[in-house]
């Protein structure tokens, strides 16, 4: 019971902290700008992509529809979202230490493990809210403004055209995997947050790690070949797999497994460190 109350407390604290709304506001503004740009001059962007196929294919109907708009938005923003997540979750433990409230919390009759797990769950709930808002702004607003239609996706294998009726479940799956990837970012930042009493450090370190892993992931150097498949960042774009035809089930399962292992490891390390920690702040 006290665990549930602690989760509720953590959610309330996030909800009442002004910083938490930066992520939501940033998504609103960024998606708003992209929607405005696509509405104003979207067809010229689409023509630039389709022109290379026009000798072999003819495009009919509403190509620039809500499904395509949502895909473009996700593609553009999914790299920035981890920063917005870490901005809130990286502060969940170290921010309490910096404020001194960790002292007050840890003299309450709740175990350190329960308190920390309630922070992980609250971080997960915040991540879910951000993802749902991103989904609303991209898919729902995209469809409202641009209508619906078949989704045309350009990937490394070429052009994939997905039937309108075949798209919604792919978005649902894509958002679920994106949530798992972002939850891993949240776990990483909370884990780092257990090591310090400085509230900015874990946020900056989380972003630095993501940047470093992204660079390692994109560098075509053999020395990194063995680690690349296990990097968190290698699986952050796995949501895109849902928009391939046929669906690469094994790749998706592999990404989900690796992200889950990341979470288990990060949460275990955090519990160990937090339980051993002397509260001197």
């Amino acid at each position, binding site marked *: 019971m006290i665990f549930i109350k602690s989760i509720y407390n953590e959610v309330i604290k996030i909800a009442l902290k002004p910083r938490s709304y930066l992520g939501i506001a940033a998504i609103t503004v960024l998606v708003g700008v992209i929607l405005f740009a696509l509405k104003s001059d979207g067809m010229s962007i689409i023509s630039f992509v389709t022109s290379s196929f026009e000798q072999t294919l003819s495009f009919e109907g509403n190509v620039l529809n809500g499904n395509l708009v949502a895909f473009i938005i996700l593609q553009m923003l999914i790299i920035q979202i981890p920063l917005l997540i870490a901005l809130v979750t990286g502060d969940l433990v170290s921010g309490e230490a910096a404020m001194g409230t960790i*002292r007050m919390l840890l003299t309450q009759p709740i175990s350190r493990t329960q308190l920390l797990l309630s922070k992980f769950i609250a971080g997960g709930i915040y991540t879910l809210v951000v993802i749902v808002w991103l989904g609303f702004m991209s898919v729902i607003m995209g469809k409202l403004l641009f209508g619906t239609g078949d989704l045309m996706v350009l990937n490394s294998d070429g052009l994939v055209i997905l039937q309108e009726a075949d798209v919604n479940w792919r978005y649902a799956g894509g958002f679920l995997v994106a949530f798992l990837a972002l939850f891993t970012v949240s776990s990483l930042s909370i884990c780092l947050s257990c090591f310090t009493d400085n509230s900015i450090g874990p946020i900056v370190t989380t972003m630095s790690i993501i940047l470093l892993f992204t660079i390692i992931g994109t560098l075509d150097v053999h020395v990194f070949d063995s680690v690349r498949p296990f990097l968190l960042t290698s699986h952050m774009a796995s949501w895109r797999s849902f928009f391939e035809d046929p669906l690469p089930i094994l790749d998706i399962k592999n990404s989900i497994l690796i992200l889950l292992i990341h979470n288990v490891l990060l949460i275990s390390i955090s519990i160990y460190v937090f339980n051993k920690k002397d509260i001197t702040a």
Partner: protein
Amino acid sequence: MSEKIIEIKSIAKKFGLFEAVKDVSFHVNQGDVFGFLGPNGAGKSTTIRCMLSLVKPDSGSIEIFGKSIFTHRNDILARTGSIIEKPDFYKYLSAYRNLEIFSRLSRLSTSKQDIYKMLDFVGLGGREKDKFSGFSHGMKQRLGIAQTLLHNPDLIVLDEPTTGLDPQGIIDIRNLILRLKNEQHKTVILSSHNLAEIEIICNRMVIINKGVSVVEGEVKALMNNEDLVVRLELSNKEKAKALILAQYPNMTITDINETNIELPIEKSMISELNKDLVNAGIGIFSIEAKRKLEDYFIKMVNT
């Protein structure tokens, strides 16, 4: 004999190479207002943090309510209220919200009315919706007291609770502690740099110096073990000195100014000396016992 609420035996704690606590032992009885004294860096805060499971000692044992803090942490903390160093709350939340957050983690169900009543009790009535960031130091301290008492704890640990308070605030907190002891029979541990406060409020105390507990016992007994230094303000200092030396030839009398002298004397002899001086026609304007806790404290920590 009173029941022991806290029993600390030979705790030690190192932070890296620094030995914050070397060997601290003491016990606190049910209903005590227990003074926790020591100069800065003596290890008071570390000891209190060990008691509340914020810091794990390297060795020694801590039993509270007859249970080890290492194995029954949650049961002990459910019956304990504390302010460590200074009360820190969420700056972006109101006084009410802050208390609500902490009350949810207690085992006692607390209603909205209970929180309002407690805020009223500590003098923050009408400020429930004000954000903590806008509170003065005294108000923060009062909110800390409210949080400490909200779940009706049996043991209250107050680390420097009157720091930064105005004189009225200090009196209020002092009266509150005495009320908690006398009316609700709570056990209170009071760490304070205000030694006069300890002398007035506490019945037992421990003095810690350089990470070691130097002395522990009843405040009155510890004070009465030693001779006092009494300062007298007199109408005729020279006549008084002659009279005293006639009766106590080995007495060392120190001149302070034209009317004041100081002399070491047992507490029980003050009334007799007073009577002798009055009978000799010497006016006594004031008698002040100089050996207070400050002197005792300085003597103990310099031993």
